[in-house]
Every structure is written in C-alpha cells, then in structure tokens.
C-alpha cells in the first residue's frame, strides 16, 4: 500500500506539473485577451512533433530549445495575423477561430507526420532508473520532467513579479484599458504573451512526447482538462493554476490507484446495497472507473460554489 501511495504521489506530481506548463500559458492568455484558446493543447502537440523531427537529425537536447521557440513564434504569428484580425468581430469569432485552429493543426499534423504513433524516445542519457523502491523503478526521465517544470514555474514567477515586463503583463491582465492609456503597447504585450504561452505548451509537448507517446490524438486527450484547471484555479491566477494542476494531477493518479467502490463506502456505513435493483451498476462503480470524470465534477462544483475559482480575482 505504501508503495502504491508513494508512486502515485510521484506520478501525480509529474502529471500535475506537466498540466501546469499548459495551464500557465492558457490562463494568462485567457485572462488577458478573454479568449478561450481551444487550440492551446494543439500547440502542445506541435511541440512534441517538432521536437521529434528535430531529434531525428540532431538529437533530443537541441529540440528541447528549438521546438518551443518554433511553437512560440508560430503562436505569435497566429495571434498577430489571425486572432487580432478576427478580434474585430468579437469574442465569439475568436472562440470559433481557435476552435477551428485546433482541428486544422490536428489535420495538418496527421497529414505531415502520418497518423501512427511516432517513436519519439527519451535521450539515452536519461534512460535509466533513478531509484528502485519496493522493486519498482522510477525513471530518470520523470525526474527530469519534474525538474524542467519546476524550473519553468520559478522562472515564470520571477518574470511576472520581479521584472518590468511582468508588471506590465499583470497590469494588462487586470486593467487592460488603463495600461493602454499609460502608453504601453497592449496589442504587442498580447502577442508576446500568446507566443510565450504557446511556447510553454510546446515545451510541455517536447518533454511529454517521449513519456506519454506522440500521436495525433495527444492534444485531444489533454485539451479539455487544461480548461478545467484554468477555471478551477481562477482566471489569470498563476498560483491558482499551479494548485489546480497539482490537485487534478494527484486526484487522477490516486483515483486510479485506489480501488474503492460505492459499495465499499456504504459497507463502512453498514448499508448493504441490493445487488438486483435498477441502481446496481451504481454500487459497483469503482474509483478508477470514475477517475476521468472527477476533474469535471470538480469544475462543476467550483463553478457552483466559487465561480471565481480558487484564487481568482476578477469576476468577469
């Protein structure tokens, strides 16, 4: 049992931090521009594919730098020449634009790279077990993922709170009009934030690609969960996104690891559910089975009881 909890904790942190890399960019974009960027997870996928292609030629490490930069530039270009143009027709148009973009990117990816899973592998230097605990290996690559995510997280925090750019970004988040009045180029800030947000998603893809496999569906399986994090954490709140990412990461891994069902809970309360009634499927429902819907349940609960999210400041 202890083994299970220990490894679930580690796995949960790995997943949570990975989600945070995606959510941090999304939450900044969302709160600044009011755009729910449906294509955000697609940039994550692009990161993985770019890095895969780069790793074919020059190895994993250059890809770690080049791929996120490429994704970031692509993101900035899309903001400058796509999103900004569409913006004049309002938020609905922007929403539909990113929605279409997500499909477009998926199709383009499967057109260029094919639909099969790509053999994007960890660098050989990280292909060993960092430690073995109760006979179970913890891959060094997972530790590397944790390290990169934490480094990014700290860097982001420092940039946002300790630099002038960070100040402007924060100002643009809470009072966009006022910031523009003060003479700052808010559209440029938007483009930069969009680009950096996409680059972060790309970086998440680069490091997740080898661990979670690189295939055209990888954006879909992650896409919706990132929105949950942004809403649960609170719009524009990096701290909230961080906490929500970890909560959801841990919640999902623990829900899978712990085999409890509804009837177990009832038996603790000395209730024996009937095994014949119309609700019998409900009693046999186990935690691993409901694991995928738990984040969405959390989303609904948060929206009901705390619409601003855990750390959200702004109402709208």
């Amino acid at each position, binding site marked *: 049992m202890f083994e299970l909890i220990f490894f679930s904790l580690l796995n949960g942190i790995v997943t949570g931090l990975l989600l945070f890399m995606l959510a941090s960019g999304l939450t900044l974009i969302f709160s600044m521009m009011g755009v729910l960027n449906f294509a955000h997870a697609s940039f994550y996928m692009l990161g993985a594919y770019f890095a895969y292609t780069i790793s074919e030629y020059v190895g994993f490490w250059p890809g770690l730098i080049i791929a996120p930069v490429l994704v970031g530039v692509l993101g900035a270009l899309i903001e400058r020449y796509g999103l900004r143009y569409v913006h004049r027709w309002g938020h609905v148009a922007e929403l539909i634009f990113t929605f279409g973009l997500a499909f477009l990117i998926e199709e383009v990816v499967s057109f260029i790279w094919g639909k*099969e899973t790509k053999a994007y592998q960890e660098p050989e230097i990280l292909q060993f077990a960092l430690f073995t605990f109760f006979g*179970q290996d913890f891959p060094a690559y997972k530790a590397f993922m944790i390290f990169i995510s934490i480094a990014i997280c700290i860097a982001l925090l420092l940039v946002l709170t300790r630099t002038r750019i960070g100040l402007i970004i924060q100002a643009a988040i809470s009072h966009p009009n006022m910031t523009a009045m003060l003479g700052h180029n808010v559209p440029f800030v938007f483009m930069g934030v969009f680009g950096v947000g996409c680059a972060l998603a790309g970086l998440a893809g680069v490091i997740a690609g080898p661990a979670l496999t690189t295939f055209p569906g990888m954006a879909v399986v992650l896409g919706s969960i990132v929105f949950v994090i942004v809403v649960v954490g609170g719009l524009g709140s990096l701290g909230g996104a961080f906490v929500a990412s970890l909560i959801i990461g841990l919640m999902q891994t623990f829900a899978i690891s712990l085999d409890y069902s509804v009837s177990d809970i009832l038996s603790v309360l000395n209730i024996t559910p009937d095994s014949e009634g119309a609700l019998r499927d409900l009693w046999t429902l186990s935690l691993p089975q409901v694991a995928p819907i738990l984040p969405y349940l959390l989303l609904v609960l948060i929206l009901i009881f705390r619409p601003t999210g855990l750390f959200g400041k702004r109402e709208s």
Partner: protein
Amino acid sequence: MKIRSMILAGAALATLSAFTAQAAETIKIAFVDPLSGPFASTGSSGLQQFRYAVDELVNKKGGVLGGRMFEIVAYDNKMSPKESLIQFKRAIGEGVHFIAQGNSSGVANALTDAIKKHNKRNPDNRALFLNYSAVDPVLTNAKCNFWHFRFDANADIKMNALTDVIKVNTDIKKIYLIGQDYSFGKAVAAAAVRFLGEKRPDIEIVGNELHPIGKVKDFTPYATKIRASGADAVITGNWGADMVGLGKAIGDTGLEIPIYTYYAANDGITKTIGAGGKNKIRLVHEGPLNPPRTEAYKAYHSGFKAKNPDKDISQFRIVNTIQMLAAAIEKAGSDKPIDVARALEGMKFTTLHGEEIVMRAEDHQMLQPIHISVHTDENITFDSDNSGFGLLVEKSVPASDAALPTTCKMKRPS
C-alpha cells in the same frame, strides 16, 4: 452564350463519364473506420491494406465475374457508432453494398443491428457486413445475424488459444487483467476469467481493471498498480494509442513479466515499445508472420512494403476478407449480397500462408489457426514499423482446438 454552351458541354461530359463508370460496374466496398482522432493510425493502416489487397489479389488478376473490379471507398466514422450509422446510410446512398468495418466492437454492434434492420426494410437494396476485426463474441453468438460475417477470431477464441499456452506455464501464478472500458475490453476480461478458471484454477487474478478508451493520457498509475499487485503476467486487449501508452508505462516501471496482448504491434506500436518490450510483449493473432511459411506470402508482403514502406500488414485477415469475398462472388455468380452471403456460409479457403480456414455456417465466425508470437528482434524476416523488431511465432493452436461452440440461432432469409 459561349459560357452557357461550355456548361452544357461540361454537363454532357459529366453524364457521359457517369455512364461509362456505370458500364465498368466496379464492385464497391465501403471501408467504415476511424480515419481521424486517437485511433486514426489503426484505421488508415487498415485502409492501405484493403486497397493493396484489392489491387493485388483481385483487380490485377482481372477482377471478378469476368472483369468487374473491386473498389474500396473510405468513410471516416471517427469511431463513433452514431457517425458510423450516418456513414452507412451514405454508403448505401452511393450504391455500396459491402460494408467492411473492424475497429471497435461498439461500432460493429451498432452496424450489425442497423444492417439487419436495413435489409429487412429494403429487400431490393441489401447490404452485407464484412467484419474484419471487431471481436466481441456477442456478434456471432446472441446477436448473430445472417448479414454479418466475421473474419477475425473472436475474443473468446483468442483467449481460448492464449490460455492454452498459459496453462502449461507454471511460472505464472498471478495475473492482472486490464482493458478498455467498452464491450470488447469487457469481453476479453470475461473470457480471461472464465478460461483461466477452467484451465488453471490455481492462478489468482490480482486485478481486473477497465480504463476509459482513448482518454487516458498517462498509463503510469496503472503500471504502478500492476507492479504493486505482484502480478506474474498481464493480459490486455488494448489497441491503438492505449496499447502504446500501457506498454511504455509498464516498461518504464522495470517490470519483467510477460504481457499477453491482442494488438500490441504495428502502426508505431512496435517501434515505440522497441527494445523495452523484447521477449515481454506477446500477441495472439492470425496469420503466422515470422518465419514466413509460403513464397506466395513473401511476395505479397514484399510487394506491399515496396508500395507502402511506412505501413505493415498488421491485419492479415483483411487479405482473407478480400480473397474470400472475391471467391464468394465468383461462386455465386452474382454480387447481390444475399447470393454472396449464401456462398460465404461454410466456405473453405486456403490462405496466402497456406492455412486452411473455414467460415462456419452456423454463426458466420471464421475458424482459423491462432498463433502466439513474441516481440523480438531475433529471427525476424518481416519486421514491423521498420524497427528491426517484429513478431516471432512461439506457439500455434490449430483451428479445431481454438474453436468454441456458438449459441447463435441464425435466422436465414427465405
């Protein structure tokens, strides 16, 4: 005036070409499977295999019924039963009467009902369901119908063969079952529990887990659980991205136990699992790939690879489906679904591998030898994903041993 006459000429030309197309009278086969989404790789690889089989084994040999060619028409069903029914309607509307589908038993269950209903209501415009890969046993048992033919071995037959192999492996004392949460995954788990109970009651099933299909982004928690359970072997029916993820996660935890699978090869899976799965991953399948048994198959495989260097013949049953459909049309002397169905019933056939197979008339389930292969890079003639790794046959179970009785009560149209 000029533009108008051009339009007229164009329209005339279009009608003319439509007529010539009709004169050639190709026999169309609808391929209704996922060509987008998480399982697109499995679907698109199947499509290439169908196209090659049709070109190589039917059209290049002069077609059927004195020169009529086969044509595969692709319909993307996104692996949703709802979408499949729409695509089925579309196919019927476009004059297609042979429906090939294989990915997901959930879809097959919906399609077989829809086709049955459609044929009842439209006796002049019937369709035939060529199920090349959906292996939920119910399709040829409780839900069997005259219009459905299954060319793959069903999940029970495969499990029967697999447990024959596990039976004699005394190292295995604890088994973990994991699968996708839908009809097929459940069928595999149920079959495993049943056959292990019959053949090796001493084996403890330490886990029987279903996970959502196509939605798990990280299989590490499952691998952790398998490791913690102390299992000596894993049985899974996972396919597509779910198989890659599971295989990789189990490899990462450093588990050195056999993983018995239904579909852990090709479409990038073999390459991704690579050396980490050597001598661990085993596959229950039809069509013995390595070592190849006949020159005819070698030539076919090499030809396929020359044309599709990135793809593999991952579903040999597709070859059988096309060859037997052609043979049935010839035998019936007609391409009307009802005549073809009658010809297919009980049809005996020798495959490119030289194996004797038979389409059981009772339930339209193909009876064929089942092989259990191991993922390795030694003694591989035809590798998968050009990775050097491939499937080497370890054990073979003859068709007669693998076959299981059916509960099907087939209602035949008069």
